[in-house]
């Protein structure tokens, strides 16, 4: 490839960018007055640049459309009060997780916060129905949304493997229903390997001695299916 020709080619791009110095600009434009090949190159480069910008804009618009659809979907979803409350809780969980693994954590990245994707999964308790399947990304923060009944001052939720004698490996106590008798149980997705689990909800009552008593409310079986 002719080096000088290639440099002239690149001068075309610099001209389009307005990046030529005064003497370079004068020399370039002087040549432009008679060099038909340079004029062709200029028009071609300009066309390429303009069409590339159009294509890039199409791509950005497509991303914006996708974002708009997601926002629209979320706004409709969060119009349901339980989900709106769960979203608020999920945001709190995500921020807390960000603080723990971000600037305060030992393994934080030099750039600051880690992005923590969060999945909200409603768990439905339907008597006699098969265990609900929950598909999630093990790297994400999981928020299980559980409806509760009764009039307890607080609730305790625990999760255990669905096998005889299994102990709870995740527990949250003194939970308040976030909105309209709904509990949002946050947990790291990595805790749920593929398998069957039981989520237990108990109501908390203050005991006379100052301690707490727990009343079994319901159990919800679910099956964990890692998304990937």
């Amino acid at each position, binding site marked *: 490839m002719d080096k000088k020709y290639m440099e002239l080619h690149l001068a075309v791009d610099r001209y389009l960018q307005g990046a030529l110095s005064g003497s370079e600009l004068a020399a370039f434009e002087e040549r*432009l007055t008679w*060099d038909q090949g*340079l004029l062709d190159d200029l028009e071609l480069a300009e066309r390429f640049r303009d069409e590339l910008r159009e294509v890039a804009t199409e791509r950005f618009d497509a991303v914006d459309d996708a974002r708009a659809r997601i926002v629209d979907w979320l706004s409709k979803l969060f119009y349901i009060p339980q989900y709106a409350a769960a979203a608020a809780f999920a945001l709190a969980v995500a921020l807390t997780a960000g603080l723990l693994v971000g600037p305060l954590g030992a393994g934080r990245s030099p750039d600051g916060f880690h992005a923590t994707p969060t999945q909200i999964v409603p768990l439905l308790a339907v008597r006699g129905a098969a265990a609900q399947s929950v598909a999630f990304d093990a790297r994400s923060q999981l928020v299980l949304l559980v409806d509760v009944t009764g009039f307890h001052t607080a609730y305790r939720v625990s999760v255990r493997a669905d096998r005889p004698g299994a102990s709870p490996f995740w527990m949250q106590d003194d939970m308040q229903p976030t909105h309209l008798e709904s509990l949002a149980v946050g947990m790291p997705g990595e805790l749920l390997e593929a398998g069957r689990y039981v989520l237990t909800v108990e109501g908390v009552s203050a005991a006379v001695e100052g301690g707490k008593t727990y009343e079994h409310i319901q159990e919800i079986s679910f099956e964990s299916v890692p998304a990937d």
Partner: protein
Amino acid sequence: MPLRERDPALEEEARIAARLVRGFRAGAEECARCETEMIERYSRGLRCLLARRTGDDERARDLLQETLCIAIEKLRTTPLEKPERLAGYLRGIAVRVAANAGRRGRRESPGLDESTIEATPHEPRRQFQQVASEEARCAVRKVLQSMPVERDRELLIRFYVYDQDKQEICREMGLSSLHFNRVLFRAKNRFKKLLEESAGGADFAPSGGG
């Protein structure tokens, strides 16, 4: 930038320019012939230059006529100190005409010689300008798809879409200047070939010479 380096095309241009300038001082017949040749040789480039400076293609057409009128009048009466630099002389007039037009800020007749107006050649659309936008966009997509390295695609976007400086792109992406040049050169050449195919298979005018 090696634009002023001696090369065959530049040397030929110097010879033609000197002959044209001499012709303006010769007899009436030779003078008329040189006027016509000068208009044919420099009109396209001057119009392009004027269009870029005014941002108005139609106005550039008027300003081209004004530029040529001034040049012809001067060349008929005053010899150039460096006849081989006729292109630089014409470019200088065009730049001043564009600047004056900007100051005038409105379209007005520069009082042109009608014979010169008629002699100004009508610029035919270049072959690749005739390719429809959608086809050209399709060609750009094909160029992007044909690039196996994501980094090269990013280079194009940064340079052409975001107007990022070459040195900045090379530094941030850890690229050599040579690699940068090759990516740009190949992408444009591929684009050109695709446009040629869209336009009917005929080659465009060859680059790199006058």
